[in-house]
């Protein structure tokens, strides 16, 4: 993908104890403050004990991008044994920075220096020594390395100082001092080194109109919830969704709102629905196994037409699967999980800003269409950081609930009445003149149980028809086409986090002269049939890449539209490689596939 101006991807590798994640964090905060767009994805060890490998990757660009790059520009090793497997990711003329006198004794072959490719530029530095000199301890190694990178590439030293001070402001002053000293020592060293790299750092783009926030997908969900006025949250911890709850239980009470850890996922969704029935915006968050447990309750939310919002961050499945790996294999469960004809709204954001927007819109939609709304993230999206810029004028509707029309005296409230716009009037406990009972049984317009054929047929139609309006919901783009206009050789249909890599691959394919377009689909259910159909009409071949084995979205697209797509499926537990998509595009366009870099 051709990015105007700056485009630099930096990876720190080490153990948790090395401060790998911390230093990556400072880098992204600083670059965001400097005005760049940042996207970053850290990988943590799966084990409880912190002896596992950490990788912190940050991509700094001049304009908004949708994914990490496949190749690394700068690799920093804080522990060679963890960095070696990543050496091959560094591009030609990319920098590899490592300690020339590592922490522990190592055998021949255990040094990263022996694993570099010709063309990669090694910077073997006395990192530990510099740290000891600057701070009296080796604990500043990570900061020395970060300073070196900043100095070498000419990044803004002052914003780093600001961010370091901010990060350690609750710690004793000496901590800030030592970290700054280590950073500066590294910076001086880097500034004096020769930069072989062809890439230059452009000035940050013109200051955006609105403040950039540095958010992970999960924290964007939290911001979306708060911005939409969430009143009640119920959740049960599960990787990779737990951090949503952890932030909400911290933030909501500050605003006088209520968040509660429940005894399991069934109670979490049940309480969410209970609160929704009582008229407040409520939500829960989980991952695939928890969503499986919620399937019965989702049906109640559908049948009783009570709003609920469910955030689901997908991880490797089936079953307990791979809790700390990413995957897109809970789509079928999200769309079809429930007994009976239990259609619901499913949104899948493609980037961090989308997480914010989908979160807020989920509350609007749940309320307006009186239905469960599932927002489907995945571990990659939940945990990756991006700079998010949203206009403060963009607000979510404070209430989108259909107003109550009190029953005439002596009459019963028609909670499930058929109306012109297909949506029944709600009533909330506490409102006089609106008394009614909702139920999981089929029921008539009053909410009274009925198993008459015509009532069940009409009500089924009502429940489905109202959802079809959601594809026109204001303020959210549910499909969007990128790339070449008109007829193309290959059209890529992509969803969720994989859209980012798809877009990147599409751009590269266009650079190679392939006529190519990509469509992101954000609303997975009900499927926006018309724009997808039109997109498919315009493409010679349609490619649908997704991180699952069965081709779940491909099945839904073909199942709904009755037409075939080319599937690209894999389940590595990591984001899809741009090269894999690119090769598939080439193949479909009749070009020769190339070896992956």
């Amino acid at each position, binding site marked *: 993908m051709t990015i105007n101006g700056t485009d630099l991807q930096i990876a720190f590798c080490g153990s948790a104890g090395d401060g790998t994640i911390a230093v990556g964090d400072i880098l992204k905060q600083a670059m965001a403050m400097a005005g760049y767009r940042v996207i970053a994805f850290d990988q943590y060890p799966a084990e409880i004990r912190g002896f596992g490998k950490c990788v912190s990757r940050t991509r700094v660009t001049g304009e908004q991008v949708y994914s990490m790059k496949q190749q690394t520009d700068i690799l920093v090793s804080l522990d060679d044994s963890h960095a070696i497997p990543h050496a091959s990711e560094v591009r030609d003329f990319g920098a590899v920075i490592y300690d020339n006198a590592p922490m522990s004794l190592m055998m021949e072959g255990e040094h990263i220096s022996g694993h570099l490719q010709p063309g990669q530029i090694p910077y073997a530095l006395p990192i530990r020594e510099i740290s000891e000199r600057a701070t009296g301890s080796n604990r500043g190694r990570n900061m020395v390395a970060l300073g070196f990178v900043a100095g070498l590439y000419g990044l803004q030293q002052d914003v780093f100082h600001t961010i370091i001070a901010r990060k350690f402001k609750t710690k004793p002053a000496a901590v800030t001092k030592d970290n700054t000293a280590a950073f500066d020592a590294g910076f001086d060293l880097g500034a004096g080194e020769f930069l072989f790299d062809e890439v230059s750092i452009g000035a940050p783009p013109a200051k955006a109109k609105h403040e950039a926030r540095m958010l992970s997908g999960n924290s964007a969900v939290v911001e979306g919830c708060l911005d939409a006025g969430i*009143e*009640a949250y*119920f959740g049960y911890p599960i990787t990779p969704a737990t951090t949503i709850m952890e932030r909400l239980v*911290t933030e909501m*009470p*500050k*605003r*006088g*709102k*209520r968040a*509660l850890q*429940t*005894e*399991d996922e*069934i*109670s*979490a969704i*049940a*309480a*969410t*629905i*209970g*609160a*929704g*029935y*009582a*008229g*407040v915006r*409520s939500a829960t968050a989980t991952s695939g196994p928890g969503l499986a447990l919620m399937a*019965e*309750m989702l049906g*109640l939310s559908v049948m*009783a037409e009570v709003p609920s919002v469910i955030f689901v961050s997908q991880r490797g499945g089936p079953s307990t699967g791979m809790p700390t790996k990413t995957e897109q294999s809970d789509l079928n469960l999200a769309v079809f999980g429930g007994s009976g004809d239990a259609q619901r709204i499913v949104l899948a954001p493609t980037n961090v800003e989308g997480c914010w927007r989908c979160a807020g819109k989920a509350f609007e939609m749940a309320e307006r269409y009186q239905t469960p709304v599932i927002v489907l993230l995945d571990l990659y999206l939940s945990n990756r950081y991006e700079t998010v810029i949203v206009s403060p004028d963009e607000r979510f509707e404070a209430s989108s609930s259909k107003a109550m029309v009190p029953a005439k005296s002596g009459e*019963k409230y028609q909670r499930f009445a058929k109306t012109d716009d297909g949506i029944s009037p709600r009533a909330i*406990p*506490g*409102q*006089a*003149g*609106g*008394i*009614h*009972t*909702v*139920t*999981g*049984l089929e029921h*008539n317009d*009053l909410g*009274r*149980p*009925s198993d*008459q*054929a*015509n*009532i069940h047929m009409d009500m089924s139609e009502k429940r489905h028809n109202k959802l079809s309006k959601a594809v026109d919901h204001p303020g959210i783009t549910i499909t969007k086409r990128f790339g070449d206009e008109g007829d193309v050789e290959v059209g890529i249909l992509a969803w969720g986090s994989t859209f980012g890599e798809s877009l990147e691959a599409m751009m590269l394919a266009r650079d190679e002269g392939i006529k190519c377009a990509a469509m992101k689909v954000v609303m997975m259910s009900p499927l926006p049939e018309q724009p997808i159909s039109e997109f498919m009409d315009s493409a010679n071949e349609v490619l649908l890449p997704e991180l699952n084995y069965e081709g779940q979205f491909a099945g839904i697209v073909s199942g709904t539209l009755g037409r075939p797509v080319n599937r690209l499926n894999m389940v590595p537990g990591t984001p899809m490689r741009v090269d894999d998509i690119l090769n598939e595009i080439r193949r479909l366009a009749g070009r020769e596939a190339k070896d992956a870099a």
Partner: protein
Amino acid sequence: MTAELKEPVYLEEKLKDIQDSGRLDFRSGSLPTWCPGCGYYSMTEGVTNSLNELGLKNENVVCVSGIGCASRFPFFVDVYGFHTLHGRTLPVATGIKTANDDLTVVVVGGDGDGFAIGGGHIPHAAKRNVDITYLLFDNGIYGLTKGQTSPTSSMGFKTSTTPYENREQPLKPLMMVLSYGASWVGQAYAGHQHHLAGMIKKAIAHRGFSYLHILSPCVTFDKTDMTYQNMNMAVRPLPEDHDSSDQMAAMIEAGKTDAPGLGVLFEEIRPTLSDNLDAIATSAGADIKAKTAQAAE
């Protein structure tokens, strides 16, 4: 099978016939569908009277039911209602109460709904001291599904799922709920309607989680064990000197399932879930009082 397509006959219409006949006298617009003589009938009277006597407004009361013969209760009373899923009353009620403290929430359900499929939720509603009232109708059987063994079925009882006889020791709900730390625990009997009505009122009046265990014969599927005849002989009032602030004394009474003691076994006042959530908001810096004042405007 065109017959299935004809217009629905609403229960209301049927009710008129029956009310005119003078056979029944209920306070809501709908006709209970329980078997004649069922213990559940005692509920309608008891709940409606209590709500009335406590001076509550209809629209500020929510009745939550799960699945079982109690399911339809919300339809028989003139308050807001939520007929939820089998075993899930308490978490739904917790959600309702979390959303709006001002509502009076009454949960009704059976022994299977509560202690089989829903058994995992009771400890947590009790521990959190959610300010709701849980009326549990224990008939020692699954009524709605036509007569299977329940967690409180007695040993030796023959049902459609224990045709050779039930050999499992029944659960003791009152001991269980006491062990969970419920802040109000009482026992009543559908055959003693007047006492039951009084107990329902006390249970609703209690601020916190109140659990009322109601022994309630299923006249259709139990002809041998928990019949009115047997229960009339077995029940007794709690001893006059029973100290309802003493958890262990309550536990001992709760253990006497052969001679169930009717009355308030245990009660204590401690912060409710809402109290705690407000306290948390206050520690977090929110101005809860201002919020309440605003709401009152």
